[in-house]
């Protein structure tokens, strides 16, 4: 019999994520995948999985899992206390979980999204080459619910022996590297100056599609409508209200508002972990 992972308690919002669907944007299929891809990759490495295996993305922690067989499990991303039955277990290290034991991941004390990898990976059937839930289009497995029983794959081998996995601390204020363009010339010089110097705050309306920001609005120099054009992960789009929004993994493949800049890939993990209210500044790395 194959191993399964019972989701005793799913938490506020938990989805299955891998590294997403790349190569289908021309068909309108969003990429999806872990918002903090570095954290999922690390969790997978810690349990001996390929980095692109599917795990759980648990928003704010607070979930309980029970494997049917003995497994190796790792929790990364948001900082959470981890328990195996009544024993405390390590965060961001491989944890040996006996068959039937309850793994309790407490509410996150830092960050926003915890990642749970299990040896063998979550083996729900892939959809268009990925097991990721896409909250924008509804592709992939549904959001994880209390009582779900998820199939697990076969582990490739024993997990690596690890005593310490370096993981950067989450800063109180984010500094996000950007490259201006493609539509920076649609904004006034003052707007670009504002973008590069002002402090923004992450809004409560932040989800897997995008991190909305609150701060000084960016004024357009070109006010005509932008014909829909392809957008990339990390695009800083400026809708009609002038408040920038950073596109995350479930972003639409095309958009009709100008993209003033694009976030450097290294900054995306920090944005995925930024709780509403976190201060954020942009820094231009290349003009």
């Amino acid at each position: 019999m194959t191993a399964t992972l019972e989701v005793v308690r799913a938490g506020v919002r938990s989805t299955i994520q891998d590294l997403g669907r790349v190569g289908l944007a021309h068909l309108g299929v969003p990429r999806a995948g872990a918002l903090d891809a570095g954290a999922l990759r690390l969790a997978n490495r810690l349990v001996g999985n390929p980095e692109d295996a599917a795990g759980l993305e648990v928003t704010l922690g607070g979930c309980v899992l029970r494997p049917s067989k003995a497994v190796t499990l790792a929790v990364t991303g948001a900082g959470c206390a981890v328990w195996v039955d009544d024993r405390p277990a390590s965060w961001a290290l491989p944890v040996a979980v006996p068959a039937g034991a309850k793994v309790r991941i407490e509410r996150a004390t830092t960050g926003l999204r915890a990642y749970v990898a299990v040896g063998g990976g979550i083996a729900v059937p892939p959809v268009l080459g990925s097991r990721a839930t896409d909250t924008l289009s509804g592709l992939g497995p549904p959001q994880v619910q209390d009582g779900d029983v998820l199939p697990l794959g076969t582990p490739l081998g024993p997990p690596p022996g690890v005593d310490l996995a370096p993981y950067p601390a989450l800063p109180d204020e984010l500094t996000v590297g950007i490259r201006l363009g493609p539509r920076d010339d649609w904004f006034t010089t003052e707007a670009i100056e504002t973008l590069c110097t002002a402090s923004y705050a992450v809004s409560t309306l932040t989800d897997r599609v995008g991190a909305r920001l609150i701060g000084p609005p960016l004024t357009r120099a070109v006010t005509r409508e932008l014909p829909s054009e392809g957008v990339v992960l990390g695009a800083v789009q400026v809708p009609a209200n002038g408040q920038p929004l950073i596109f995350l993994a479930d972003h639409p493949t095309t958009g009709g508002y100008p993209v003033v800049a694009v976030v450097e890939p290294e900054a995306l993990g920090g944005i995925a972990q930024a709780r509403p209210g976190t201060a954020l500044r942009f820094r231009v790395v290349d003009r």
Partner: protein
Amino acid sequence: MRVLRTGRAALLIECDAPTDVPAWYRSLLQRRATGALHADEIVPAAQTVLLDGVTDPARVAAELRTLRITPAAELDPTAAGLVEIPTVYDGPDLDDVARLWHTDRAGVLAVHTGTLFTVAFCGFAPGFAYLTGLPERYHVPRRDSPRPRLAAGTVALAGEFGAVYPNASPGGWQCIGHTEIRLFDLDADPPTLLVPGTRVRFVPQAVR
């Protein structure tokens, strides 16, 4: 034509005219197929083609600026597939569209089935294809308030575009009919019938 840098690994090609987009798209697909271009995504849109996942964007941008593409007018139109979409003209906005076109229901059917559409690009939702080809005098505005739910297969118009909703979704387009044909199938490769460049003809179907 302009090539705009878009972050570290992407380029946005802004075409001189929307009619150049299919020519650029096809030319870039060919370059990728022959190994002359590496890109994870090639995404056509209204006036642009996005290249994402490009390993050396500065070099590719320089190459693109010297590239001569075959103009759309010289492309072989039969090289792309033709999809016929059997359509029942029974949409709730049929009378509104007839009024905007100064005709009646039969007139809307005649214009819509008489137009050879082309998939300009996809977006909004998986398999949602923006169809061009409708003469400018038949362009219609979106509805003032969007409907909360349009059924999969709804045949609709907005602005310069036609479309068929691949899945149920909210929508503000003018609905003129519906089709039973399945546009988006996860088990098919590619999962959608209407890939960019495909020509589309709507064929009238009586209500059974």
